[in-house]
């Protein structure tokens, strides 16, 4: 019955989705800059992070305003979940910035002769994020739940990349500096997948009113 309120909720959802697409683009571009050694692209990613940060501020402000209208039930869950998702998206943006920074550093030095499939792990992480966001739009709890176990695959892949880089560093001490950049970049992607998992858990809470965070069956706690 409250059209103004419903309109406010719609605006909130729209802002969130727009912020999400910015975050996805940032990750894509950061990985591209890394793989293609594109310093200019890396710089753009870092600058665009401000846009993502601004979105978080706006979404939080709008959410607080909506909370003063004392929403209940689904509306209440939607507003609180929106605030949480926006925080995860902002962190994803930060991780993209970190990747971009490493991309820029690596582009200033000769490439390392190692075959890493960063686009693949990045692709997995981004697919998870997309699936979680689609579940949010469609209020599809099952789809959101399906995202969560995929984090294991990303963790495993990260471990592989990590091991390969460590071995390379042992065999070629001169590449240690550059390999460390790669390690950090891969770690950032693994964190992006973690954030995507958080978003999925938030979507489950929104749909089912069940809080499934920290309930075992997640990937290992902290990767070295």
């Amino acid at each position, binding site marked *: *019955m*409250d059209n103004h*309120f419903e309109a406010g909720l719609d605006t909130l959802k729209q802002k969130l989705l727009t912020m999400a697409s910015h975050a996805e683009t940032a990750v894509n571009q950061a990985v591209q800059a890394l793989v293609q050694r594109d310093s200019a692209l890396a710089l753009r990613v870092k600058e665009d992070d401000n846009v993502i940060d601004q979105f978080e501020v706006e979404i939080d402000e709008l959410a607080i305003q909506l909370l003063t209208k*004392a*929403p*209940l*039930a*689904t*509306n*209440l*869950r939607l507003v609180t979940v929106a605030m949480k998702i926006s925080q995860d998206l902002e962190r994803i943006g930060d991780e993209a910035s970190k990747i971009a920074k490493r991309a820029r550093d690596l582009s200033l030095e000769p490439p390392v002769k190692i075959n890493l499939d960063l686009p693949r792990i990045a692709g997995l992480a981004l697919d998870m994020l997309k699936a979680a966001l689609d579940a949010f739009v469609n209020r599809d709890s099952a789809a959101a739940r399906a995202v969560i176990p995929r984090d294991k695959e990303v963790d495993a892949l990260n471990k592989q990349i990590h091991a390969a880089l460590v071995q390379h560093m042992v065999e070629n001490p001169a590449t240690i500096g550059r390999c460390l950049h790669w390690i950090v970049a891969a770690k950032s992607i693994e964190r992006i997948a973690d954030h995507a998992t958080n978003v999925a858990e938030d979507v489950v809470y929104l749909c*089912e*009113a069940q809080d499934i965070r920290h309930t075992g069956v997640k990937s290992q706690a902290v990767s070295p």
Partner: protein
Amino acid sequence: MATTQNNSDAALIVRNLSVFFGNRAAVKDVSLDVTARAVTAIIGPSGCGKSTFLRALNRMHELNPEARMEGEIKLFGDDIYSRNVEPVVVRRRIGMVFQKSNPFPTMSITENVTVGLRLNGVRERKLLAERTEQSLRMSALWDEVKDRLHAPAISLSGGQQQRLCIARALAVQPEVLLMDEPASALDPLATSKIEELILQLKKDYTIVIVTHNMQQAARVSDFTAFFYIGELVEFDATAKIFTSPSKKQTEDYVTGRFG
């Protein structure tokens, strides 16, 4: 739909309660348990039967000659509608506070507080004085009126009068206190005093409150029952009803889509 909590915690057990006015059923086949020493709120759109339901709990609906009830209500195990039970006795165990405060205009503050006792035969002055102070303290009115206990009750403000009515109800030491929209005629400050009072009182009393203000129900109650056109649609912990209700009707009402 009845959510029966652990029965030993139930102050009132209502089973299949229906209330008819002539041929019209105002309350249809309601069953629920009211937990002792907790606040149970009854919400729903106007005309949904919540006040009628409340009045059936202390047999007040019998004041209307056309009213008739079916079903069973037990107060701590005693059937309040059994033939051996006088309605008057039920109402001493289950008290009621009304929407419009109604202190008796010909009586002073202290006479109002003790009227339930005096008109039921209690004469001992010491007991009456003690009970007066006790009840006025419990309803957070003592400090404001202790120096003018013999002033006319109607000289108090609206919010004070309502607290006086609460003290009057508490003076007969009921086990359950029913409140029919107790704060709806009061300004926000007086309302919040009443709500604070309810949260204090629930330590010792079982309280059932009818309210059309969902925020109020969310603030003061532990359990909430949602009524719609005479039927109990959903009854659960307040937190659940207001964050994730099970029934779509409840969700629609609570998010303001109707009513």
